[in-house]
């Protein structure tokens, strides 16, 4: 029982990331009809927004500290973040400590901007082109984006810690009445899950309750008709792309403390997110979210020791196996609509 709960919890954070990326992929696919291979790169850029902000906040200048001496007895040169000069040491430390959550504020406009630029500059020229061309050009873009990040940040993962308030772990077992230390779960992962749930809820609420969302949903159903109604659907779709980029970016920002970002993390997640989208059903937002969590938890179950004894390596392939089975037996995925991407 404890083990089961633990695996479900373990699956949730990865599932959250899958769900967020898959949600964005589906938004783009559903509204624009474009298969975006560069979506993983947006996730990665989000993560690097957090890295960049962290670096900016810790930009330092060197001052001579007379109170400390090095081993030769000379005054020590210490690096002092500029932040201390503005806010004082205590407040400065807090800000640096909270750099990842603060990055969200930076990442939203940045990612929106990148998303809109991408759609206007590149993707819109590919609406009429075959899906293969869309895959290829966004694949090229993904390579370019990740190489740019690699050029500026190097190839190694860059640790970006969560605020110290969240570094510990929460003893779930104790809270649920089991023995202590059986089910412990890092706080940050709880935060990540809660954050993902909020974002997903916000996106759905936005689509459900705003006029904008209504038009977009209508556009996902039948793009041409909405266009005929005189609604400027293209501009809304551009904004939609920005939104999807922001969702992916935020997923990336908050993921940095869980996994130190590197330049190819986007590609790693992208392949799995496609699997998620396919399992959930191409063009189905609910399906993407459901499948994201489902597959995250499934993957975590598959990596249990007991399972691996019976079926070694299952954790490595479970998602692909599920995708293959789903595609062959239920080609529309768990919640896919009729007529989406069927040829």
């Amino acid at each position: 029982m404890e083990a089961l709960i633990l695996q479900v919890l373990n699956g949730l954070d990865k599932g959250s990331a899958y769900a967020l990326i898959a949600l964005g992929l589906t938004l783009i696919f559903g509204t624009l009809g474009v298969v975006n291979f560069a979506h993983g790169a947006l996730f990665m850029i989000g993560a690097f927004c957090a890295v960049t902000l962290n670096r900016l906040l810790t930009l330092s200048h060197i001052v001579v500290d007379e109170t400390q001496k090095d081993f030769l007895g000379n005054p020590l040169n210490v690096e002092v973040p500029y932040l201390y000069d503005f806010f004082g040491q205590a407040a400065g430390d807090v800000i640096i400590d909270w750099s990842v959550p603060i990055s969200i504020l930076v990442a939203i406009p940045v990612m929106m901007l990148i998303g809109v630029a991408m759609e206007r500059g590149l993707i819109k020229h590919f609406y009429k082109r075959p899906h293969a061309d869309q895959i290829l050009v966004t694949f090229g873009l993904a390579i370019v984006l990740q190489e740019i990040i690699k050029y500026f940040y190097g190839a190694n993962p860059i640790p970006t810690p969560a605020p110290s308030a969240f570094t510990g772990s929460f003893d779930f077992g104790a809270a649920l009445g089991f023995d202590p230390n059986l089910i412990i779960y890092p706080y940050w992962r709880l935060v990540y899950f809660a954050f993902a749930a909020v974002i997903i809820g916000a996106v759905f609420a936005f689509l459900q309750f705003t006029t904008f969302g209504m038009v977009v949903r209508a556009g996902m159903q039948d793009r041409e008709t909405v266009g005929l109604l005189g609604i400027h659907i293209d501009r809304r779709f551009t904004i939609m792309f920005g939104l999807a980029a922001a969702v992916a970016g935020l997923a990336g920002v908050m993921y940095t403390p869980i996994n130190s970002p590197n330049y190819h993390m986007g590609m790693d997640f992208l392949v799995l997110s496609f699997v998620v989208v396919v399992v959930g059903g191409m063009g189905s937002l609910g399906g993407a979210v459901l499948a994201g969590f489902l597959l995250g938890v499934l993957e975590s179950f598959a990596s249990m020791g007991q399972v691996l004894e019976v079926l070694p390596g299952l954790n490595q392939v479970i998602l692909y196996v599920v995708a293959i089975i789903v595609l062959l037996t239920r080609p529309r995925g768990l919640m896919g609509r009729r007529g989406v991407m069927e040829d």
Partner: protein
Amino acid sequence: MLSLNARDFQLLLFVAAITMLAPIFLNPFPVDSSLAQFNGGYPDLMQRFVIFGIFAIGFNILFGLTGYLSFGHAAFLGAGSYAAIWMMKLLTMNIIPAIILSIIVAGLFSLAVGFISLRRSGIYFSILTLAFAQMSYSLAYSVLTPITGGETGLQPKLNDPRILDGELAAGETARANLFGLEMGSSYDLAVGGWVFTFNVGYYIAAICMLLAFYASIRIFRSPFGLMLRAVKSNQNRLGYTGVSTRPYTLAAFVISGMYAGVAGGLMVAMDTQAGAERMFWTASGEVVLMTILGGAGTLIGPVLGAGMIKYMENIISKINTTILEAWFAWAPDGLQDVLVSVIYPFVGKGWHLTLGLVFMLVVIFLPGGLMEGFEKIGGLFSRKKGKNSDSVAGSASPAAAE
């Protein structure tokens, strides 16, 4: 000639001449000159040209003709590599059995993958192949370690059985050979300041590529090839003409898988090692890039694309700041710094960036690849262009329609 029409035969002769003379014209710079680093005529690089050429020719039979975009072809190349290395470990270091087994294993593997993946088309097909390839990659790294060597990969060892070969003396290493002719052996020809290296491994791989290229011409020009092009052009209509699409696409898939097997086997023949990284999906992406860059659906495009990408990889990634500074030595200091710092991100370690950009530009502006570019340039010079029989598939149809 060889059952080819005159034009195709000329193309084959042209490719044959280029591959046979490659060690000479790929080394245009004398050894001592500062430009010698741009010589591409060393065996290791030339082998990669032709081996990836084979891979891309095969991929083109699937993607170029039928339009089915596979994102998992590296899995077949990887499977072929493992098969070849096992043959070298168990049977003999002679490359013939190794390559034969590579083809068989890759063919069977692609038959299984294709049988399932081809039940879907379009984006779903791409994702299915991608899923299969990633699955193979993950398994090769984990559970299948006894067969694949996991992270360390496989190499021939001194104590391998090698039933057909004699016992190796202590200190001797097992070398891949063709009936005793070692892959690594070369003949260096020095002419004046130039040195040309004629390598056994390269010539064997090049002959394989010529055979592969010849077979691909025959496939392109066969009724079978016509059906494959018809799949790309209008798959639905094909059923109403009495043709069952699935066996044709499956055959194309398996043929292209077998080409990947040959490439995998030859890689092992050259470097006698195999590892899972050859199956990673970026490796599948690479062959897609090669085919598109050269021109999907054209005969010679994929070979060209493979050569371009491998040359770029080797040469561009060698350029460093010192070289750049030397290039722009003519410029005033300030301008020199600017030029160097502008170009620097695109060379050396940044060559992937260049690759990505070139690829995007090709997809955006030249969906038919370099071959389409050549045609357009050719069209500028001679308005009275005749019918174009090389670019048979859809990409170049606007030109053909004039």
